[in-house]
């Protein structure tokens, strides 16, 4: 679905934002793109959608060169940016103007999602809505486009706690074998139990890219007693609840993935973790 090969990109000549980056993303998955601020997550999404052009390397999105921005490709992509455009349109008119560009758009779905987000009045003007409400409208619209590729940049920013739960439920319900979702975030907790593949960016490179089932097969996430000692521990965090540990899963024991713990573990003990995969 998306094939990025040896891509290098920079906004200025002095600093490279992405360096020789390669990644393949398959359909039927929700990919979580994690990384600290300024690592190039948003830029990678822009490159995939054709908003920026790679200086070196090549990208194939849905079988197209995204640089060409062909409508056949664009009608199968929906990009939810972190910062939304200022449009002096009502929700109703936004749908009227932009929905016809997407051949698989479903008004029924759009209305359902809006209802779930408690947005009842489609006559509301987008520029009069709060940032969170506006984000809800765009999330609902994006999901209703039924595009093959859905790119979301920090989608939970600005959403209140109940809305984050609604967002997770909605996204989970829309994924199928033909659809690929890439969600970029630095708020890893928000994606708990949603994503099924984790990509971590560090120092402008992809340092980790694994499906959840592989991660839980190779790593064990547990809360251990502070006095307990184990040779398998790769990374641990001391919290009020106990000692959160990531260790090598030698016994095949099943554990629930803690994304935040994994993310911190990768940033701290990158070599040890990468060696296991």
């Amino acid at each position, binding site marked *: 679905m998306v094939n990025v090969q040896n891509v290098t990109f920079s906004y200025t000549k002095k600093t490279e934002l992405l360096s020789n980056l390669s990644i393949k993303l398959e359909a039927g998955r929700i990919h979580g793109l994690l990384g600290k601020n300024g690592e190039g997550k948003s830029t990678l999404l822009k490159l995939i*959608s054709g*908003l920026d*052009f790679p200086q070196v390397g090549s990208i194939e999105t849905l079988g197209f060169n995204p640089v060409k*921005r062909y409508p056949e490709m664009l009608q199968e992509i929906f990009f939810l*940016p972190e910062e*939304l455009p*200022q449009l002096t349109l009502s929700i109703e008119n936004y749908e009227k*103007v932009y929905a016809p560009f997407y051949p698989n758009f479903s008004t029924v779905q759009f209305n359902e999602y809006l209802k779930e987000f408690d947005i009842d009045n489609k006559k509301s003007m987008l520029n009069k809505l709060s940032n969170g409400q506006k984000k809800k409208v765009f999330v609902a619209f994006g999901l209703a486009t039924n595009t093959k590729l859905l790119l979301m940049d920090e989608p939970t920013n600005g959403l209140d706690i109940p809305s984050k739960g609604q967002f997770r439920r909605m996204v989970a319900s829309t994924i199928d074998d033909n659809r690929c979702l890439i969600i970029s975030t630095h708020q890893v907790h928000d994606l708990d139990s949603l994503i099924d593949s984790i990509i971590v960016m560090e120092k402008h490179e992809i340092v980790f890219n694994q499906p959840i089932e592989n991660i839980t097969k190779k790593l064990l996430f547990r809360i251990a007693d502070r006095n307990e000692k184990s040779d398998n521990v790769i990374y641990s965090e001391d919290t009020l609840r106990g000692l959160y540990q990531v260790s090598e899963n030698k016994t095949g024991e099943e554990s629930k993935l803690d994304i935040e713990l994994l993310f911190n573990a990768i940033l701290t003990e990158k070599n040890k973790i990468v060696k296991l995969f």
Partner: protein
Amino acid sequence: MNTTLNINRLGLLFQRFFIENKQAELTFWGISTVIFMVMRNVGSVEMFLYIAGFIFAARMFKVFNYTPGGMHYLLIPATHAEKLIVNIILSTIYYFIMIIITYIIGTIIGTFLGNIIFGWQNPINFQLFNDSISNSWNNQSYQHNGILEIFMTFALIQSIFMLGSIYFKGNAIGKTFLTFIALSLTLGLLEMILFRFTFGSFHLDGHSFNLNLRTSEDLFPGFEIVGTIIKYSLIPFFWLVSYFRLTEKQV
């Protein structure tokens, strides 16, 4: 589906413009009608057409002033050619036709109201469509540009400012003006240098030589035609440059 040009997508892009700008368009054309009710002098009408026109053209790609707006626009599933064609039609043909319509309506209403309020008996006179204008206070008549020539000059100005709107990020009007002035100065300087080399002087004041040129046709037969061709071929040239600029636009 046609990758380059699709009528359905063109229609959707027009629909997008009119729905998004309905309020602003209605307000502007209302104001134009009122202006033409009181201002019917050909020179003033032409000036209004050109000035308001280039402001309109310079705002055609204003979405790129703001990154999220630019992203949203570039991701609309339509080709670059379709997006550009829609903006060319809007800034050139649509705008010109609307000016003409508001001019006609404004002139009719203005003349009618003037006759009623001040007791005049002025006939409705669309000076813009007359090639020859008679001046009532000195009984002289003079030629002014025909409507086709006005349109072509207008289209040229629009093409320059539309290119400016896509080329510059922020304050496109000012930057396009400055660029235009800088280009004119450069060409003027080049002309002076050519004169210096050709005639040995910067001036054609007759002191050093006697140049008795009545028209540019005397200097070079067919000069006017060639000049007109160059002038009008600049319109598609600027459209083409705008197209390439749009295809390589990154946000």
